């Protein structure tokens, strides 16, 4: 009466239904202004592939593109995530980690375990801002001092005159900073509250000031993957907020952006650009992360649709009226690549190949059967828009099932080098041209690049 073959067949059929289809498209298909967007694959068992952080072996560095070299600017940090270059060349680095999320459903402890694994077993993030100084200009920060301590989970920083703004995870704070100081003067003042706990799923908040300093723009990631905790938890989230630094008045500048982080102004067009992490658990090749210029008042689809009007059926009830409003982003940069850092190359001295365009820090994937990201790329621009295929600037972070480090924030230093915060590698990297394009005292060589 007992038929093991029948039961095995049933289980095999169920496993097929439960697991995803895996990678179907070449990586390039998820890049550029017109990426291939496959139909969503709502597998019950999405791929989880998490590389174990092991830190950098002595003397080992990421691999730089031809014509560039990379050296450690500062080591021994704890979860360095985001950078701000000060006018005198000092560098502020936010060393932070997200707060623990409440357990709302049986899935949460599983995901929390995976995320803990992705961030390694080192000391707890100190949630401080450190000051790195390279006063002798040898390309190595000879001092690291604590600049601001006791923060909740700091991330973005912006300096307007003597006002230093810090985007802590639940408040935008203002400090007074005098050039060359090793600490801010006095304590902090709260400019505006930011959406925080108790869930605070995407906790990283970034801040940038308008060129005239009259407005601040703050990124706030969603409180979920696709609003599964309910839209009541998504107020002023998945958005870039515009904040008046004097009154703290806050309004939505652009919305429907699942998890925006890096921000920068395009010098040519004056447009504000951001980089956005798109949603998970609809397959290896969907949906691509992207960089985009922001249309004031623009809506970019989250949670109801992705890459314009590609419908995601998970937000419930459906909102066709919102999907009809969704704008298509400018340039896709790979599904699940974990793209976080963004900086235009203005001021960079890395040769003509890396002159007009943007650097993007790709922290790396977890929800993909083959890892993606784990590198820094450069996207060439022409006339204020991305133009051409991305160029890999730094890779070599991934080593089989282990990672030496994971790039996050990118910034152009005062000397024209590119700085990259590497949270899992506890390092800030400094990328320079092998031969300075205009070395002093030597004849100007014609570049073969």
């Amino acid at each position, binding site marked *: 009466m007992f038929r093991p073959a029948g039961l095995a067949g049933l289980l095999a059929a169920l496993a097929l239904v439960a697991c995803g289809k895996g990678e179907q498209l070449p990586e390039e298909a998820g890049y550029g202004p017109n990426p291939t967007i496959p139909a969503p694959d709502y597998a*019950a068992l999405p791929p989880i592939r998490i590389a174990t952080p092991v830190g950098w072996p002595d003397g080992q560095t990421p691999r730089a593109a031809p014509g560039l070299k990379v050296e450690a600017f500062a080591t021994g940090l704890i979860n360095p995530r985001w950078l701000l270059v000060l006018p005198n060349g000092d560098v502020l680095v936010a060393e932070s980690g997200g707060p623990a999320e409440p357990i*709302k459903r049986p899935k949460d402890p599983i995901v929390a375990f995976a995320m803990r694994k992705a961030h390694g077993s080192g000391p707890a993030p100190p949630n401080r801002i450190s000051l790195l100084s390279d006063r002798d200009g040898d390309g190595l920060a000879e001092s690291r001092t604590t600049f601001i301590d006791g923060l909740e989970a700091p991330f973005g920083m912006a300096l307007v005159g003597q006002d230093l703004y810090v985007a802590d995870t639940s408040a935008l704070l203002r400090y007074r900073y005098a050039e060359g100081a090793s600490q801010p003067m006095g304590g902090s003042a709260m400019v505006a509250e930011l959406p925080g706990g108790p869930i605070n799923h995407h906790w990283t908040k970034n801040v940038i000031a308008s060129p005239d300093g009259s407005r601040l723009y703050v990124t706030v990631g969603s409180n979920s993957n696709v609003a599964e905790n309910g839209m009541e938890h998504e107020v002023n989230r998945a958005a870039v907020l515009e904040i008046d630094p004097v009154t703290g008045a806050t309004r939505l500048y652009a919305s429907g952006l699942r998890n925006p982080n890096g921000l920068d102004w395009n010098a040519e067009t004056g447009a504000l650009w951001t980089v956005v992490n798109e949603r998970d658990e609809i397959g290896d090749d969907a949906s691509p992360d992207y960089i985009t210029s922001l249309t004031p008042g623009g809506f970019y689809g989250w949670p109801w649709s992705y890459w314009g009007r590609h419908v995601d059926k998970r937000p419930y009830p459906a909102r066709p009226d919102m999907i009809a409003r969704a704008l298509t982003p400018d340039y896709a940069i790979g599904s699940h690549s974990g793209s976080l850092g963004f900086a235009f190359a203005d001021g960079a001295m890395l040769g003509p190949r890396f002159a007009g365009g943007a650097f993007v820090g790709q922290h790396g994937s977890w929800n993909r059967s083959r890892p993606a990201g784990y590198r820094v790329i450069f996207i060439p621009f022409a006339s204020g828009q991305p133009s051409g295929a991305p160029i890999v600037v730094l890779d070599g972070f991934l080593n089989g099932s282990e990672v030496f480090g994971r790039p996050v924030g990118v910034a152009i230093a005062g000397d024209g080098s590119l700085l990259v915060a590497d949270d899992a590698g506890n390092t800030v990297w400094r990328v320079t041209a092998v031969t300075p394009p205009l070395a002093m005292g030597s004849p100007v060589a014609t570049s073969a690049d």
Partner: protein
Amino acid sequence: MTNPRSTFRIAGHPLHPMLVPLPIGFLVGAFLTDIAFWQTGWASFAYFSSWLIGAGIVTALLAAVAGFTDFLGEPRIRALRLAWWHMFGNLLAVVLSVVNFLVHMRDGAAAVLPTGIVLSGTVVLLLLFNGWIGGEMVFRHRVGVRDADGGSEL
């Protein structure tokens, strides 16, 4: 002639009937919270379903331990065709609930609509069928029922 005896028992009283209301309650509850999610769109109802299905599976395994012990410990129970139907029906309900637990790990509506709620409803129908058969085993075939002279159980 004595009645078929329960092996998993305390003071002659079978434990299986005491344990089965737990998975039945949890799994019927999951179907109700799935319906509530479908009707209201309130996100928490999908999370309630996840917890209820998980609790249903764990308590179903406890009830299964008692049930299998009775099944294996008494040849006259194994000789009942109904007992085999009861076992297969409940195993199927547990397998479907494990799949349903995975389906409910998806985010948003994909946790419930339409696969999750169909599985939850199917499991409820199966439990009704299995419960009916369980009743047949006790009320018609006197499985685990105390003998008239009161001595044989001890």
